[in-house]
C-alpha cells in the first residue's frame, strides 16, 4: 500500500518535471511561429523608429535577425577553430599522463573553469581583450566563447580516449609506431565519435550564452563581417528585444530560432553518441 503510494508520488513528480520543457517549447513555438519568414533570416534588426512607425500603422514589424545570425556564426566559428585543436591536445595530454601531478592540477583547473559563471568569463574577456583593444569586438566575443568551450572539449576528449581499450594503443606501439602517430592514426580516429559529440554539445552550450557577450561583442544593428568591431549575436538580440518596448514582437521569433538550433544540436549529438557506441 505504502509502496504503491510512493510509486505514484514518484511518477507524478517526475511527470511534473517534464512540464516546463513542454510549456517553454509550446509558448515559444506558438508565439514565435508566425514571425518566422524568409525576411526574418535575411534582414537585420529594424531601428526603434521604424518599428514604432510600423506599430502605429498597425503593420508587422519589418526586419529580422540576420545581423545576429551572422555575428553568432562568426564568433562561434573563430572560437571553434581554436578551442577544438587545443581542447583535443589538452584532453590527450590528460588521458596520456593520468598519474602526473601537473595533469591532476590541470584536471582540477578544468573543472573549475567549467564551473565558472559565464558572467565572469565576460568580465575577464573585457579586461583582457576589450580594454587593450580599446573597443568591443567580435574577437572579444569569440575569446569568451573559446574559454567556455575549452573545458567541455577537454573533458569529452579525455574521457573518450580513456575508455578506448588499452590493446588499441599497445597494438599500435607494438608495430613500432611512435606515440604521436599512434595517437593521430589510431587513438584519435577511434575516439572521433566521442570527441565530435563533445564538440557539438560544447557548441550547443555556448551558442545561447548572453551575459559574456554583453561586455565583449556588445551588439550591432546591421550585418557586419569585420572581426575588430562590435557585432551582434542571436542571444544578444533577444536581450535587446526584451528591453526595447518597440521590438518586443521580435522576441519570440528569435527565441524560437535559438531554441530549435540548440535542441537540434543536442538531439543530434545524443543520437550520434548512441549510434557510434554500438
Amino acid at each position, binding site marked *: 500500500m505504502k509502496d504503491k503510494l510512493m510509486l505514484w508520488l514518484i511518477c507524478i513528480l517526475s511527470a511534473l*518535471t517534464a512540464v*516546463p520543457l513542454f510549456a517553454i517549447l509550446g509558448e*515559444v513555438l506558438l508565439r514565435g511561429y508566425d514571425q518566422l519568414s524568409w525576411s526574418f533570416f535575411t534582414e537585420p534588426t529594424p531601428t526603434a523608429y521604424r518599428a514604432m512607425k510600423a506599430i502605429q500603422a498597425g503593420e508587422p514589424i519589418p526586419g529580422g535577425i540576420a545581423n545576429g545570425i551572422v555575428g553568432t556564426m562568426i564568433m562561434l566559428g573563430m572560437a571553434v577553430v581554436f578551442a577544438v585543436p587545443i581542447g583535443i*591536445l589538452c584532453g590527450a*595530454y590528460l588521458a596520456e599522463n593520468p598519474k602526473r601531478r601537473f595533469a591532476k*592540477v590541470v584536471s582540477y583547473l578544468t573543472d573549475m573553469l567549467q564551473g565558472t559563471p559565464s558572467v565572469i568569463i*565576460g568580465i575577464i574577456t573585457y579586461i*583582457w581583450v576589450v580594454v587593450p583593444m580599446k573597443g568591443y569586438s567580435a574577437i572579444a566575443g569569440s575569446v569568451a566563447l573559446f574559454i567556455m568551450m575549452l573545458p567541455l572539449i577537454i573533458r569529452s576528449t579525455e574521457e573518450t580516449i580513456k575508455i578506448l581499450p588499452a590493446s588499441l594503443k599497445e597494438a599500435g606501439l607494438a608495430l613500432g609506431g611512435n606515440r604521436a602517430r599512434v595517437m593521430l592514426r589510431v587513438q584519435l580516429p577511434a575516439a572521433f565519435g566521442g570527441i565530435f559529440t563533445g564538440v557539438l554539445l560544447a557548441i550547443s552550450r555556448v551558442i545561447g550564452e548572453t551575459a559574456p557577450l554583453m561586455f565583449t561583442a556588445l551588439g550591432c544593428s546591421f550585418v557586419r563581417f569585420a572581426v575588430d568591431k562590435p557585432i551582434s549575436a542571436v542571444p544578444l538580440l533577444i536581450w535587446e528585444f526584451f528591453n526595447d518596448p518597440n521590438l518586443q514582437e521580435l522576441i519570440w521569433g528569435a527565441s524560437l530560432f535559438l531554441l530549435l538550433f540548440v535542441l537540434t544540436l543536442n538531439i543530434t549529438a545524443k543520437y550520434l553518441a548512441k549510434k557510434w557506441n554500438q
Partner: protein
Amino acid sequence: MNDKIYKIILFAAALVIPIVCGGVVYALVTDAYEAFDHFGFISFLTSSEWSYTDGDEHYGALPFITGTLMTTFLALLFCIPFSLPVALFVGEYFKGTKVAAVLSTVTDLLAGIPSIIYGLWGFYTLRPIIMELDISPQGSGILTASLVLAIMIVPYAASLSAEFIKMVPNDLKEGAYSLGATRAEVIRRVVFPVAGSGIFSSFVLAVGRALGETMTVTMLIGNTNTMPDSITSTGNSMASIIANQFGEASDLRLSSLIAIGLILFLITAVINLVGKMMIKRARIS
C-alpha cells in the same frame, strides 16, 4: 615527429588551462583592488549601501551576496522534491526501460535550454501567475527567480543522482528484499545510505550552477540594489548586478563590480571543487 616534440606539444596545450585560470585570478584581483582598497575588504563585504551619485559614491556587496544566497538556497529547496523522484524513476524504479530513457532525454533537453529563454518564459508566463496569486504585486522578485532557477538545476541534480542510484549493488537490495523489506524501505535503508554521498555531491554541483546563473535571475529578480527583506521582495544577485551595471560603469563602480565578480568566482570555485572531489570519492567507494 618524434616523441619529444609530441610530448612538448601536448604539454603546451595543457599549459593553456593553468594560464587561463591564473589570468582569471590575476585580472580579477588587480582590477578589484581599487574597490577593496577604497572601502576596506571587510566593510565592502558587509556594507549594504550601493549608491553611485557623483561625489557620494558608496558600494557594498552585502545586498547582492544576500540575494545570491537567498535565490540559490530557495532554488535548492524547490529542486529537491523534483530531482530526487526523477533520479529514483530513472535509476531505480524504471531503470533501463524506455520510459526512463524518455525522461532522461527530457531532462537533458531542459538542461540545454539557454538561460535567456528560461528568463523570457519566467517573465511572460510565471510572473503573471505570481501576480495573479497575489504573492507579490510586481511579480518579479527573489521567489520568482528562484522558482525558474530550480527548474534549471533539476536536470543536473537528477541525472547525477540517478547515476549514483544506479550503481547501488543489486545484491545489497536483494538482501534487504529477502528479509521482507518493502521497496520504500529498501530505498530508505539501502539505496539512500549507499548512494547518499553521491546524491549529496550532485546537489552541491547543482548549487554551484545556481550561484552563477545570470540572465534568468537578471530578468526576474526585479533589480533593486537594497537589502531584500523577504523572499517575495525584489533584489539583485551578484551575477545580476554585474549584468545590469557592468556596461555603464567606470572607475570605482567598475572596480566594485569586478570585486563582486571575484567574490562570486571564489565561492563557485570552492563549491565546484568540493563537489567534484566528493563525486570522485563517491565513485571510488
